[in-house]
């Protein structure tokens, strides 16, 4: 309960101003495609040079919290996830917006973000020492199995056909292999300079989600056919609150999954949303509604990606190990003020550490308030005529993919993947499994390679990858997940099972 004593620091005028400014700024940055939470925090670090340590951290913490949630705005309204964390939000969120429930989707997304986020920070406050041990328990073999577990989800994610889902995932896995391999130094599929560093996930994300839509808008506009516009009518906030309270299952699944995944160093928020979405779907009595604009999809995904924020800081604050790219940037922000995270951080710098954590707690609440306010503005933006909308999305896509690494090569990659995705979608392939493959590929590959190197120095790969309680538990989950997919595929679509006996 020690943290209660340090709430005063958060409510000092300058701190509060920074907190509000960081939250609003973070929402705007998060809603801009291409500006990921990592970038937003890195951009803010120079500003903290001139602030007291605690105040600087308040700014960074507020920005981290709200950029993660802000990414939902573009995911819902434009179907462009602001960051990998928001991919799952786009699946049902954008469908809701198309059906005229945009404001409702935004309300639900910010409310569930807030609930998940507050619980995540509370976990950070009360369970840090225990969680730190848990975070360290994951070695290369476990991360490999975890990534494989993610791969088993691919087939069932946002796809009418199990086979096409798996095929999209394979394309993503293949794309993830392009570039320089960090473990053996091999160069793979590098035909042009732009591919030396591989395909950047943000550039791929923007291309795969935004470009097919832009092409769709332009092609329909040319035909002069009726174009589906997105209207964002006002939605009663009271109804949204009631709906959130009634969605306990999705909210719980999202928060639990987000907290657990957030803890594991090196996996982090990129997959929290997608795994939570998949679990919420499996446990829901309305499985078929997922992907058609089902609110539970939005709630599970957003609760998860904000629940991840607090636990993702556990390895950083206790062991000085940044578990995610954003945490690495935050470490820089701490060091620059002479604060070394470690086991005794809370004894040596209690006011800085607790003020930072408390500000994230208050930041979650502010994020909900300001986020809901954006729904009002979103309505105005969404009313723009289709040709202007399509052009604006295209400009944002080019700007976003360029700004990640100031590289025109990324823009070329973004456009190429986007055009390819446009045609793939015509054949019933979907974007989310492809992106999940692209995210999981490097995690699985690097950990497998590292694991085999370590195994060679110990008792061989069979022992290293197949023994130990955590390995066995993860393998069991993989088997269950594959088995479940088979079973539900046979059960729900006997016709398609007959057509596709191969897998």
């Amino acid at each position, binding site marked *: 309960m020690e943290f209660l004593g340090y709430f005063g620091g958060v409510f000092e005028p300058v701190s509060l101003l920074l907190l509000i400014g960081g939250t609003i700024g973070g929402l705007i940055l998060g809603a801009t495609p291409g500006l990921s939470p990592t970038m937003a925090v890195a951009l803010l*670090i120079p500003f903290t040079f001139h602030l007291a340590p605690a105040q600087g951290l308040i700014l960074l913490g507020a920005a981290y919290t709200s950029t993660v949630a802000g990414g939902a705005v573009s995911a819902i309204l434009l179907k462009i996830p602001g960051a990998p964390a928001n991919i799952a939000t786009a699946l049902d969120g954008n469908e809701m917006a198309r059906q005229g429930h945009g404001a409702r989707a935004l309300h639900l997304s910010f409310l569930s973000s807030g609930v998940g986020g507050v619980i995540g920070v509370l976990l950070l406050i009360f369970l840090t020492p225990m969680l730190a041990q848990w975070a360290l328990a994951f070695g290369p073999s476990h991360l490999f199995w975890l990534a494989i577990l993610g791969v088993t989800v691919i087939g069932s994610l946002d796809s009418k056909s199990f086979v096409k889902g798996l095929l999209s995932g394979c394309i993503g896995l293949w794309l993830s292999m392009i570039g320089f391999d960090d473990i*053996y130094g091999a160069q793979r599929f590098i035909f042009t300079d732009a591919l030396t560093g591989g395909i*950047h996930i943000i550039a791929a994300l923007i291309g795969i989600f935004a470009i097919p839509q832009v092409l769709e808008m332009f092609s329909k506009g040319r035909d002069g056919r009726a174009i589906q516009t997105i209207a964002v009518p006002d939605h009663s906030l009271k109804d949204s609150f009631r709906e959130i309270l009634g969605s306990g299952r999705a909210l719980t699944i999202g928060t639990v999954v987000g907290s657990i995944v957030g803890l594991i160093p090196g996996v982090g928020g990129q997959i929290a949303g997608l795994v939570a979405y998949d679990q919420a779907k499996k446990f829901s009595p309305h499985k078929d509604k997922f992907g058609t604009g089902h609110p539970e999809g939005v709630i599970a995904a957003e609760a998860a990606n904000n629940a991840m924020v607090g636990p993702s800081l556990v390895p950083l604050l206790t062991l000085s190990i940044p578990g995610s790219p954003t945490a690495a940037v935050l470490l*820089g922000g701490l060091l620059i*003020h002479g604060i070394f995270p*470690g086991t005794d951080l809370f004894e040596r710098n209690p006011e800085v550490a607790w003020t930072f954590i408390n500000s994230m707690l208050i930041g979650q609440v502010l994020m909900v308030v300001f986020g809901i306010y954006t729904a009002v503005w979103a309505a105005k933006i969404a009313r723009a005529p289709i040709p202007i909308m399509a052009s604006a999305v295209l400009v944002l896509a080019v700007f976003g993919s360029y700004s990640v*690494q100031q590289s025109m090569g990324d823009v070329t990659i973004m456009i190429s993947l986007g055009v390819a995705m446009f045609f793939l979608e015509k054949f019933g392939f979907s974007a989310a499994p492809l992106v999940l493959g692209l995210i999981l590929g490097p995690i699985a590959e690097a950990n497998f390679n*590292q694991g085999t190197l370590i195994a060679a120095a110990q008792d061989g790969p069979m022992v290293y990858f197949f023994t130990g309680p955590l390995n066995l538990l993860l393998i069991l989950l993989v088997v269950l997940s594959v088995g479940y997919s088979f079973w539900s595929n046979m059960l729900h679509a006997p016709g398609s099972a007959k057509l596709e006996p191969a897998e």
Partner: protein
Amino acid sequence: MKKLMTRLAMSLAGAAFAFAGTALAGDYPDRPVGVAVSYGAGGATDFQARIVTMVAGNEDMLGQPIYIVNKPGAGGRVGWNWFSTEAETDGYMMSAYNVPHFIAQSIKGGVKYSADSFEPIANWGADPAVVIVGKDSKFNTIQEMIDFAKANPGKVTLSGAGLFVGHHIAALQIQKETGAKFAYIPTKGGGAAAMKAVIAGDVLGGINNLSDAFRAREAGNIKILAVADLERNAEFLPDVPTLMEAGYNVDNSSVNFRGLMVRKGTPQEVIDKLAAKVPEMFAHKRVAKRMKAGGSPVKVMSRAEVQTMWAERQAFLADLLKGL
């Protein structure tokens, strides 16, 4: 409208003249100068580059601010490939270098640059490699570890930030000197991931940066067995012996030097001006204070000193990496 267009065209022409004027380098710099960092935002190189360039805008320094451009990927290869082939040579785009990384990469091949593609300006930091083990490790001295490795070839797993970075070079040097055989495990997430592998016990030991190892030891997570440098680090690790002191002939070739360089072909007067001003900027007391607070060891070296250091590393690494 027409009037507006004319005015716009005129101001553009004016701007073009202004740019043409800078090529003559008389009043260089008259606009902000970029620094390309070949690693991601928030990494050690990026973080330090932002600190050491923060006083560039002062009147007695460059008089123009410096901004950072991140070009990460493939262990730095993406950024340096870009810099050696596409960057302007007018002095308005510098790059941060990491030695031995870029020299070792150019020796191994597959990149478009070599030490001859660049002109050094000045060095700001030197982060030696240290040999570390987890806090509960059975090894308490470097001798114990090396003796064990000799008795059990290939059984000692050592994590490091990647292939052909300082950590890997240090491991290769120790192997060559002692005849011991390690299993070097490169990690994907850089030095932080390599440190996590040691703390969590995924590997028996590791080679990491002095600055990061110092913090990890302060937090009670690891033991530091030796430092791969010519002298002990008096400021951060006065109690840790060098490999030389421990009886192994391993020098400072794996020390991670960081500094600024420009592309070959940059006018000599621009290089001279930068070579005169940049070391002053690195030595500024506000910079020193921030670097010390962040646990980042500072080592300011002039252009001439860096040229010598590059040439030495080139010769040494060409020999060490031969036949690998």
